[in-house]
């Protein structure tokens, strides 16, 4: 058990302040109206407080999940509110919708985008190069946080993360999990990229993705649309709500989402990893039970290896009573300084948490402040 003193607290404050300053530097809306600026400051404060709490309490996943759930809630609120504002039904639309620029849709129809880029290149129409700039954005995110996107910055992931935390204990404790199912997202990703190319449509998005609840879906006028709605609602109800609720696991993110698999593959270019210290691990299995995305299993524990599917949520780090699990850079904890005080501030964990909150904060900065501004306006007008 770590004994905290005032120096530790000061370090956490310095960390939070540095985080706040960096957030302000990368996306503050200097030219916008005052209300939006105030909302942005509130958002920056919120993210910084999360950073402070993570460092101060050493409970990484607990505070991460608060941030992550808030991100998802605001994302849903923002999109639903814009649909209502447009005078439309927030759930159904009779217009044929453009496929959203969503990372999940793009990964699972990646070949279509490549083909479109090829056509754009041929036609010389540079306006069609939009997806490329998103590609650059994705690369920047992947280089800075890699697979941690799925636990720190994705505006959907907070849905099943939040629901899996509603009950204090899982309703079903004993069940067998076939570990080959952990490869299902990768199978979905590859298969969907192939059928999407053959149909020239984003098939995962149209047929299976329950996260369309954040936007609006097409009306049910044809049998195909009806079937699509039945399918994605069934997947949504089971993997985003019921199973996370009763088993306390993130079913959608762990076993369905193709972007999770995509990020597991490409996220390897990012150096942050979670590692098990063999000399400290007593094989108690608490980390295995706590892992919400089915990444850890008996073999992993025995061999002290963590698969590429790990999204660095920190749940196992919080759960381990021996402090055997840590964030590392390419498997090594870094000690840049001899001084204990500086080491506490500059190590793999603080670098990692800092990068994640910076990226997650920037993502949230796109939609959280406008909603806060809206609420503030409503409150102060009354």
């Amino acid at each position, binding site marked *: 058990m770590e004994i905290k003193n005032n120096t530790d607290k000061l370090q956490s404050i310095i960390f939070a302040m540095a985080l706040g300053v960096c957030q302000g530097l990368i996306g503050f809306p200097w030219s916008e109206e005052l209300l939006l600026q105030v909302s942005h400051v509130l958002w920056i404060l919120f993210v910084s407080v999360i950073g402070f709490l993570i460092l101060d309490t050493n409970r990484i996943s607990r505070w991460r999940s608060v941030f992550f759930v808030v991100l998802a809630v605001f994302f849903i609120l923002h999109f639903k509110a814009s649909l209502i504002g447009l005078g439309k039904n927030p759930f159904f639309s009779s217009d044929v919708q453009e496929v959203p620029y969503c990372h999940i849709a793009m990964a699972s129809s990646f070949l279509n985008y490549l083909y479109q880029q090829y056509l754009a290149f041929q036609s010389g129409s540079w306006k069609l190069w939009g997806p490329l700039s998103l590609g650059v954005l994705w690369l920047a995110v992947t280089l800075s946080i890699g697979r941690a996107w799925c636990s720190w910055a994705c505006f959907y992931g907070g849905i099943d993360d939040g629901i899996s935390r509603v009950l204090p204990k899982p309703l079903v404790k004993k069940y067998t999990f076939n570990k*080959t199912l952990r*490869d*299902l997202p*990768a*199978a*979905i990703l*590859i*298969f969907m990229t*192939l*059928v999407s*190319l*053959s149909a020239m449509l984003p098939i995962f998005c149209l047929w299976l993705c329950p996260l369309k609840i954040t936007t609006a879906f097409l009306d049910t006028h*044809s*049998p*195909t649309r009806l*079937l699509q709605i039945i399918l994605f609602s069934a997947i949504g109800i089971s993997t985003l709500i019921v199973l996370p609720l009763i088993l306390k696991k993130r079913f959608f993110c762990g076993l369905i989402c193709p972007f999770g698999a995509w990020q597991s593959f490409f996220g390897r270019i990012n150096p942050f990893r979670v590692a098990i210290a063999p000399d400290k691990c007593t094989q108690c299995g608490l980390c295995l039970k706590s892992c919400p995305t089915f990444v850890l299993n008996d073999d992993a524990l025995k061999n002290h290896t963590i698969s590429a599917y790990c999204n660095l949520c920190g749940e196992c780090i919080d759960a381990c009573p021996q402090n055997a699990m840590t964030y590392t850079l390419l498997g090594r904890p870094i000690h840049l300084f001899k001084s204990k005080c500086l080491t506490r501030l500059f190590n793999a964990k603080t670098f990692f948490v800092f990068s994640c909150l910076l990226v997650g904060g920037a993502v949230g900065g796109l939609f959280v402040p406008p909603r806060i501004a809206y609420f503030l306006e409503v409150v102060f007008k009354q």
Partner: protein
Amino acid sequence: MILMAEGFILGLSTGPYCLTACAPLLAPYLMADAPASWKTQIRALIEFVAGRLTAYVIFGLTAGFLGKNLSGPLSAKIIQSALIVSGLLMLLYFFKKASPHTSLCAALWRPAWAKRFPFVLGCLVGINICPPFVAGLSRVIDIGSAGMGMLYFLAFFAGTTLYLMPLLIVLPLSVIKRAQTIGTLMCGLAGLWFIAKGLLGFFSR
């Protein structure tokens, strides 16, 4: 000769569609089909291509012979049925790979049947999924001669087959255990997808 050149050029110009149409069935199969050696895998690809050829020749002959009788609802029904059968086969293959020791799987996958799987799949793909095939079919119906129809489809086949070669890149993957598992799961997904597609095709008519 001109007719054959036309078929070949149609095949060449529409071949990328053949790749995108065959890949969702063939790629999972090749990935899951382990621990096969390179030779076995390439043989599977050849068998698959031979299956397509057989389907093309039979269809070329029949379409040329029957003329317009094969167009319209009948060919649509054949196409939907072939989709469903391919889906069922992929699903069976998934079960065979996922739980090879259950008695039902063992009964369904007698060795001879299992060996011909790529060929059967090739036949079904040749009939149903490929949009260029439908284009070729309508041309043969116009030609209205069995022999000419067959020659046309042979040339068409040669043109399109070139485009299946990129699928060979899947082969080195299949030695990786994780890739086999992913391939097996993809077979299950392919099964469900093609069955659903076939059924929807029937219902939306």
